[in-house]
Every structure is written in structure tokens, then in C-alpha cells.
């Protein structure tokens, strides 16, 4: 050991990135032979597809449901919203085994569709909550003016309300994108082949028994962290405003 310790590396290498992207280049770092190699480009693609799908579905379902809770009068509105938000308290593990059996029955195991569907269970409560509380902050009078001017209810929603609710929708999309991008447990259970594994599962695959391939693992971590970091840098204001809308307004 050197004293003082050197914190600045003597040389910089991108070998770990190569080793992460193409495991056959692990070379001397191939400490444990025969471990299932991960397909990093494929995992990156899988993560992207799943996270985008989850965000888009959330934005759509969340907007309609949020609108119904915020604006429409129907019996059981409050009760349904409470029940829905309470589903967030169902531990993922409690439904995981049943979901597994359902997906097995439907032949969806080891497909990205299973991931998107299972991610909806824990992302939708947030997007519904964000959208409902955000829509409540928009004055009713704007829509009523549109209705008086001859818009239909859908027209008023599309032309007046949704453009104003865009920050809330962005917040819901980014928040759920991040949750889906970062999810690990369901992906670990529902996926077994490289055609379905997402980036977090691929990264965890670099732990082989007691051996941690820290170099490639950290290289992969940087790659996995960049998209969410960039999103947050760009849109942090929206997310805070969207999340806080429900809490601050009570």
C-alpha cells in the first residue's frame, strides 16, 4: 500500500466498458469461466423498450383516470381513489408469485410484455395520483368556458386541459420511466433469457458467487445511470412540482 494513497489513477482505461459490452473481451478478467455471459446491448435495448412503454401507457391511463377523479362526478369516486392508492401498500412480493403463475399460464414468461404489465402495478398509482392532483390545480373555469363555446367534454379535455396539464404529464412520465428503468426484482424473476433481461439484471449477472467483477460492473452502472441522470437534470423541476402537487395541496 502506498502512503499517501493515490486517489487519482495513474492511467485511464476503457477496457471495462469493452468488457461490459462484449464479454468475450473480458480476457484476463474472466475469473469465473462458463458463467452466463450478458448481452449488454440487448439489455440496454430491453430496458429502453420497457421503460418507454411503461411511461407512455402511464401517461395515457393516468391522464384519463386522473381526469375522472379530478373533474367528473360519480358515485364512489373518493372510495375508488383511496382503494387505488392503497394498492401501493401491497408488497410486490405478495403478488409476485401469483403474477408469475399468471404469466406462465398466459405464456408471457420471459417476454418484455410481462415486464411492462407487472410494472404497471406499481407505477400507475403514482401517475394517477400526480395527474389527479395536478389537474385539480387548473381552474375549472377554463374548461367551462370551452364547454360554453361549444366544445364537447372530450374536446375541452384535449384542447384546453391537457395542454395546461403538460407539466404534470411530463412529471408522471419521467417518474414512471425512472421506476421502470431501475426495477430489478420483477425483471429478475420473470426473465430468464438474454432476450428479456434488462440492464439491472444484466449487471447483477456480473456477480458470480463470491466474485464481483467490479470493473465491468461499474462501467455498466455508468451506462445504466446516464439516461436517468440526464432526464433528472433536464426535468427535475417538473418532477418536483408534479410530486409535490398532491402533497402540498393536501
Amino acid at each position: 500500500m502506498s502512503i499517501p494513497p493515490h486517489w487519482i489513477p495513474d492511467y485511464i482505461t476503457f477496457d471495462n466498458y469493452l468488457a461490459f459490452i462484449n464479454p468475450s473481451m473480458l480476457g484476463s478478467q474472466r475469473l469465473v469461466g462458463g458463467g452466463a455471459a450478458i448481452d449488454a446491448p440487448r439489455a440496454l435495448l430491453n430496458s429502453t423498450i420497457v421503460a418507454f412503454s411503461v411511461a407512455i401507457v402511464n401517461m395515457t391511463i393516468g391522464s384519463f383516470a386522473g381526469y375522472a377523479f379530478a373533474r367528473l362526478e360519480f358515485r364512489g369516486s373518493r372510495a375508488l381513489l383511496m382503494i387505488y392508492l392503497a394498492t401501493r401498500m401491497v408488497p410486490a412480493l405478495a403478488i409476485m408469485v401469483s403474477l408469475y403463475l399468471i404469466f406462465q399460464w398466459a405464456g408471457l414468461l420471459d417476454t418484455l410484455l410481462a415486464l411492462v404489465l407487472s410494472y404497471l402495478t406499481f407505477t400507475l398509482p403514482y401517475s394517477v395520483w400526480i395527474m389527479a392532483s395536478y389537474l385539480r390545480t387548473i381552474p375549472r373555469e377554463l374548461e367551462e368556458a370551452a364547454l360554453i363555446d361549444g366544445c364537447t367534454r372530450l374536446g375541452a379535455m384535449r384542447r384546453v386541459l391537457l395542454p395546461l396539464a403538460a407539466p404534470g404529464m411530463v412529471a408522471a412520465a419521467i417518474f414512471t420511466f425512472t421506476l421502470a428503468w431501475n426495477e430489478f426484482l420483477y425483471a429478475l424473476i420473470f426473465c430468464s433469457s438474454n432476450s428479456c433481461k434488462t440492464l439491472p439484471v444484466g449487471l447483477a449477472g456480473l456477480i458470480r458467487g463470491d466474485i464481483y467483477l467490479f470493473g465491468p460492473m461499474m462501467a455498466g452502472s455508468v451506462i445504466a445511470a446516464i439516461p436517468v441522470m440526464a432526464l433528472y437534470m433536464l426535468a427535475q423541476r417538473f418532477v418536483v412540482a408534479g410530486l409535490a402537487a398532491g402533497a402540498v395541496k393536501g
Partner: protein
Amino acid sequence: MQAASPDQRALARPRSSPLRRALGRDWQIAWLFLTPLLIVLVGLIAYPFVSAIVLSTQRKMVGSPAEWVGLSNYRELLFGAQYGPIFKHSVVVSLIYTFVSIAAKLVLGFLMALLLNEQFRGRAFMRGLLFLPWAMPSLIVALTWRWIYEGTPSGLLNLIRIDVFGAKTLVQWLANPDYALWSTIVGVTWQGTPFWTMMLLAGMQAIPGQLYEAAAIDGANAWQRFWFVTVPNLRSVLIVTTLLSTIWTANSINFIYILTRGGPAGATMTFPMLAFDVGITGAGQMGMGAAISVLFFPLFIVAIYFLTRHMLSSEARA
């Protein structure tokens, strides 16, 4: 249902059927808009949850047919010789894990939010930086902490101890049962605190400045302004944040899965990790795993109910 305001009534369609009176003015379009949500709610949450309860009354191993055993899974967990002690231990570990990390997140998050609410150069940058741990994939955060805690000379903490302080021994942060739980709590707190800061900061910015001016005129010092203006105004934010953070922390296994997998000797075996261990990996007793999850569900509701009530009543006294 609250009464409709006059202009709303004017907008409502003139014809009023009995169905509309019974189900609410907009029931048709409302349920239409809620259909996708209801499909997810029933098909992917309610049905699996009910079938998890059914599963918990069965003895089902992976790949073998289920056999109905009534409540014997629950009896085994609560009083049994094999699973009883493990289960009780996991309850204690879960409680410590959840409450210590929530308390730490509350204190640290509050301090950071107070700091970031002040005017200073570089505040926007600091805010952006502060939220990063929360946006980071928790798996990656856990892997990084795994490296920090590594029990070899290449682990960051051990490297610092040896290089800077000249230590001769290695500390097993994760392999020593006395340290493992606390090491895990530190990591999970590091990642969870920004969420608290974010929520509290948003709440603080919604407090009208006049309240502070009025308090200052009435002679309140900084501490009194904090205690009698800031804290009461953050009540609803605090309730929401505590609930969300508690649920996330208690249910998540990412950190523990990567850092310790519940070990050493069960020192970090929280209940979700135990359910995972029993139901999925290792023994693969799906029925027993489901029973563990189901058993914790009412505890959750009770905890959340008391928490909410306590926070509401302490507010009423203030």
C-alpha cells in the same frame, strides 16, 4: 358528493335519469375513462393478491401440484419450531431497519431542505446534485455500497483505514453480524434522503412568506419560527412522505439482496427478503413465502393507520 355549484348545474345536461341520480352526474364517461385502470387493478393487483392468500393456505413447491393445508403455514410461521424463530427475528430486523432508516431520512432530509431553502450562490446546482442519489438505479447504488463495504483491502472503507489510518486488520462491514444491519441502513438512508428533501423543500416553498414576517414581528426567534410556522405547515407533506418512504423502505429488497442476501446468520433478514428466500430461491416453498407476505399486510395497515392518526392528533394539539 358535494353539492354542485350553480354554474355546474347549468352545464349539466338537462335530462336527469334515475340512473344518473343514483350513480352521479358523469358516471358513464367516468367509468369509461377508468376502465383501463380497473382492468389493471383487478387483473394484475386484486386477483394476484387474492390468489396469494389462497396460495398461502397450500403446500406448494416449485414444479409440483399444490396441496391444501389450511392455516398450517401460518401456524408454522407463528409458533413452529423450524420457521417460528426465523420469522420472529425477521419481524425485529424489519422494524429496526425501517424505523431507523426512516428516522435518519427525516432528520437529514429536513436539514438539507432547510439549507437548500436559503439563498446562496450555487443553490440550483446543489439542488440538482442532491437529487441524483434518488434518481440512480437502486441496484447500482447497492453495488457501489457493496464495493465501499468490501471486506478485502480493495473495499473503499478498508482501503481508507489501511492507507490513511494505518490499520492492520480488515473490518467485515457486511460479513460481521454486528455491523451488517447498520451498514445496510446507512446505504439505504443515503439513497432515500433526497426524496424527503425534495418533498419538504417543495412544501417549504409553498408556505407564504407573510407567516414568517408576522411571527418575526411577534418576536419569534428562529427556532420558534421553525417549530410554530414551518413544521405545522408541512403536516400534510410529512404524512405523505412518511407513508411513501415507509412503504418503499419496508418492502424493498434491492439493497439487502445485493449487499447481504439477508445474511450473515440472518442479521439483515427483513421480511420481504425472507419471503423471497423461502418462496423463490432456496427452499422454493411458494405457499410459505406467500404466507409471510400476507402476514405482514395487516401489520402494514395497522402501522400506517396509527402513524396517520398520531400525526393528525399531534397536529390538533399544537
